[in-house]
């Protein structure tokens, strides 16, 4: 307690040696970085040695929720939060390697105000990791000082827009770019990627794009794109894991070759190990796949996840091509759709030549939304006959199938003795 106790304390503290202040700076930094930011800064009151220890913290994480007073005055909270962040950054002294900001909105701060000041301070302190999360789209424009953060290795930005400055020299150290709720009206993402020569991971979550996006990167290993986009052109030959999820507005019928030139994409892949084409991605892409035209085998491809309509001739054809060039496929997951608007084909899968042995290494199959239609049953039959090392086939039908159909499935001939069909 405070009342008159401070003098007593002084005597007591002389007797017992301080056990923590002599730890190496690196460790004190680690300890402070594990604390919530307010408590970390509060350590300045502990003693002489701790007065400015917080000011050399290398990781700063600010969450607006922690500052909410809960009295409903959200703007007041925002202002307080902004001023706290600003003062902390101003008093901070030393490199800042990681900065994370989690705020409801960033745009309420005066334009050219807070976020610009913060970014300027960060750019002068060797920042390596920036994460800004807000909850509103097109919330703020990334300040130009962001592009002067030459040491930047990881950036996760939510709800922003940006424009590359004219003399941008690129982020030489950047290895991961993650944009959430990004709205693109031009190919600025493509330009940014092109100026990050060592980029290994690109994630675009909830992308909304009105422009044609071209992603060209030789070192990219992981690619995730989901959202609504007009046209996506991918030249990423060494990608090992790709997830593309194309959403469209309801009622929209994708035109041939409009969104995603899959055959070109697949044709360029050398090292792909797993690929997921969800939403309407496969459907759009299927327009571009011509049997026999895909140039090379994808020997490393072991996992495929597709959202497709087996009854649609184009899609079925495309799927067939894909399986033909993936001899080492081990795991397949299919989300079955029924688009309904295209001419159904009932005999495609039955007419596939069984000598091809499409699935010689297939180990696991998962099929969701199985309805027992001709096409689907045909495909399943083909699969079971053609998969000599199949271990498990999980079929989820959402209780749509009747007992007869289920029995038929179980009776299908299986090439693999260990194959286990699990019906859910």
């Amino acid at each position, binding site marked *: 307690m405070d009342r008159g106790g401070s003098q007593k*304390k002084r005597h007591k503290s002389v007797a017992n040696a301080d056990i923590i202040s002599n730890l190496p700076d690196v460790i004190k930094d680690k300890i402070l970085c594990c604390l919530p930011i307010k408590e970390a800064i509060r350590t300045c009151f502990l003693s*002489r*040695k701790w007065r400015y220890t917080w000011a050399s913290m290398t990781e700063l994480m600010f969450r607006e929720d922690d500052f909410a007073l809960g009295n409903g005055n959200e703007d007041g909270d925002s202002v307080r939060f902004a001023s706290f962040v600003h003062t902390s950054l101003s008093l901070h002294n030393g490199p800042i390697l990681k900065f994370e900001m989690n705020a409801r909105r960033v745009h309420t701060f005066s334009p050219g105000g807070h976020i610009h000041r913060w970014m300027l301070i960060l750019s002068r302190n060797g920042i390596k990791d920036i994460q800004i999360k807000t909850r509103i789209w097109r919330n703020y424009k990334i300040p130009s000082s962001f592009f002067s953060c030459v040491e930047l290795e990881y950036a996760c930005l939510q709800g922003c827009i940006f424009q590359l400055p004219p003399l941008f020299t690129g982020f030489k150290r950047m290895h991961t770019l993650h944009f959430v709720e990004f709205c693109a009206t031009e190919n600025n993402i493509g330009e940014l990627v092109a100026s990050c020569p060592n980029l290994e991971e690109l994630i675009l979550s909830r992308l909304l794009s009105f422009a044609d996006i071209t992603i060209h990167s030789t070192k990219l290993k992981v690619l995730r794109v989901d959202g609504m986009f007009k046209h996506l052109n991918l030249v990423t030959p060494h990608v090992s894991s790709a997830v593309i999820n194309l959403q469209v507005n309801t009622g929209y019928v994708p035109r041939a070759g409009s969104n995603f030139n899959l055959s070109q994409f697949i044709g360029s892949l050398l090292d792909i190990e797993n690929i997921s084409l969800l939403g309407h991605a496969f459907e759009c892409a299927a327009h571009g796949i011509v049997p026999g035209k895909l140039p090379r085998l994808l020997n490393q491809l072991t996992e495929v996840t597709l959202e497709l309509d087996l009854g649609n001739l184009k899609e079925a054809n495309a799927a067939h091509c894909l399986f033909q060039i993936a001899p080492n496929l081990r795991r397949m997951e299919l989300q079955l759709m029924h688009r309904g608007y295209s001419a159904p084909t009932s005999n495609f899968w039955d007419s596939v030549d069984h000598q091809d042995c499409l699935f010689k290494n297939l180990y696991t199959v998962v099929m969701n939304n199985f309805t027992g239609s001709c096409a689907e049953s045909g495909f399943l039959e083909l699969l079971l006959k053609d998969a000599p090392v199949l271990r498990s086939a999980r079929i989820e039908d959402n209780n749509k199938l009747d007992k007869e159909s289920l029995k038929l499935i179980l009776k299908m001939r299986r090439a693999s003795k260990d194959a286990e069909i699990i019906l859910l």
Partner: protein
Amino acid sequence: MSESELAVIKPEALKTYIWLQCFDGSIQQVEEEVAMFCPMICREIVKNGTGSSKNHAIALPERVNPTSLSLILDYCRFHQVTGRSNKERKSFDEKFVRIETERLCELTSAADSLQLKPLVDLTSRALARIIEGKTPEEIRDIFHLPDDLTEEEKLEPLKNINDDPRIRLLNRLYAKKRKELQERHERQKLKDVQVQKVQKDERSLDELLCFINGDGGGRATKSKKKNKRRKDHAKNPPKADSEPLDAEGAACVVPCKVDSSNVSRLPCQNPDMQDDAEYPFEDADLDDGLDPAMKEELDREVEDFARRLNSVWNESHIGGNGSVQRFPGFNHR
């Protein structure tokens, strides 16, 4: 008996042991695979070839005391086994750090000097958990930290980040003390005949005006009320806060207002911050929700503290223009 002894000896003979020597001279032997888990020891063995016998024991860094060493070896012994599940490891780690805080600090230091990064991370997180949620006094108590910040430094308004009622109390306390200081300072200057006669007149004028306005001398209870009122003014504030440069033309109310705002805000704040009036770098919360007993204690402490500070002030250099609103001692940033 001898057979079982033999049986025991045989498998052990197949294991290689490494010899480690602590700074205090004590030597310990440990199984090789356990010791190799520590990067620093591993390097010593591989590069310098030490540790294979008692005479060539690996000299451990100074920060590794025998207790910490045995704890570290326990850690290594558990984790170097490959078959364990993540859950097992996590639960071991949780139990492992449940030791006395002092041991934990020594362990952190030792692990760092042996470059055993996973253990350093584990112990640092444990220390952070200990610190989290505690008041500065509690933390000082646990870690035996000296309460050695000078009163001057403490007089900077605390960042009342958590709205801690104790900090609010402290801020009130310090604001009062500052006021005390200011008054003594003025009285001191009035006595000082040589310096700035002209300003002296102004000062006395201002002082009188303030006194008329109810700005009492060392009377704690009165000044508290005044503080409250003044702080009310201080709340309205940012406008009143511009530097009060000419004291002469100022209306009688203004100097006091500004005066009080300066009391409650440190000069080290730049005008920029004053837009964010209430938070977090000053305490604008006024409600004196104290019961009378606490008030008494407060008064006593204020007197006590003021007396102590008075001696400090008498020695320190009093310069500058001596205007009422400036506190030379506080003008450092």
